[in-house]
């Protein structure tokens, strides 16, 4: 088995695993009971999924300028998904879109109840 074949096989494995994780994320959006649980299912396996798909593409194309572009995709994906998931989670919690019956421990509601609503943290 030559190097190119080995790299192609690795690329195929990465692409398939990444696609599988994206599928699981889609199923999770349908199956999970409330907004925050759905966010876990939708945003998180998808981070690793995106990384794996991008890695697979990079292993297949093996072109320095493309790899630089793909690295940019991963970095931007990781930085923006953190911020967006935090903002959606924060907004949903403050808007009361949380099913408290699903929470075993809730250490935030007791804190939020005691303070005046305000914009800045």
């Amino acid at each position, binding site marked *: 088995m030559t190097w190119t074949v080995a790299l192609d096989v690795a690329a195929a494995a990465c692409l398939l695993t990444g696609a599988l994780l994206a599928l699981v994320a889609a199923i999770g959006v349908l199956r999970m009971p409330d907004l925050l649980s759905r966010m*876990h299912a939708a945003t998180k396996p998808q981070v690793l999924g995106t990384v794996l798909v991008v890695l697979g593409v990079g292993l297949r194309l093996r072109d320095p300028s493309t790899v630089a572009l793909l690295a940019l995709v991963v970095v931007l994906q990781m930085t923006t998904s953190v911020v967006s998931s935090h903002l959606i989670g924060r907004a949903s919690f403050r808007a009361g879109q949380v099913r408290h019956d699903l929470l075993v421990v809730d250490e935030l509601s007791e804190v939020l109840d005691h303070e005046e609503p305000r914009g800045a943290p």
Partner: protein
Amino acid sequence: MSPVTRTRRDGTSRPARHRAVQLPAVVVLTLVWLALWGSVAPLYVLGGVLVAVGTCLVFPLPPVDLAARVRPLLLLALLGRFLVDVVRASVQVSRVVLTRGHVRNAVVAVDLESSSDFVLTLVAAMLSLVPGSVVVEARRSTHTLYLHVLDVPDAEAAEAFRRSALELEQRVLAALPPRASEEVPA
């Protein structure tokens, strides 16, 4: 951390002004520009630097003060452990999604030991990227993160998550120890 202030000639104080064009930002933005063009020809580098300087002038941001030394080996260990965590948690979340329709969750408060904004941001970002936990609220004043955690069957598991989050903070502090002069007495 309070904003840095300068004293005016008449004795009143004003917030310190920082330079809009900072070298690290220019370097990073130029690299992004080169990655987008896919070429490192001199003309592209020149264009990238011009665009980067322009961007910094139009959208000025305060400088990021790392205020930390770097221990390369421990930083590598931190990143390696992080990758392992991401993969393991991805598998775990996938299993929960596929096998169970009914999950119990928890909102856990994590009081960070360090008082540095940089450590707070880094720990929050890393915890967010690991599947199964989302930061729903962050208190800068008390350095507390409130995380929504997926699949927590009981209070014991919530406690275990809090411990693992604090261990992550310890690994961050070990890899990027704050400089002695920057340490704020608690």
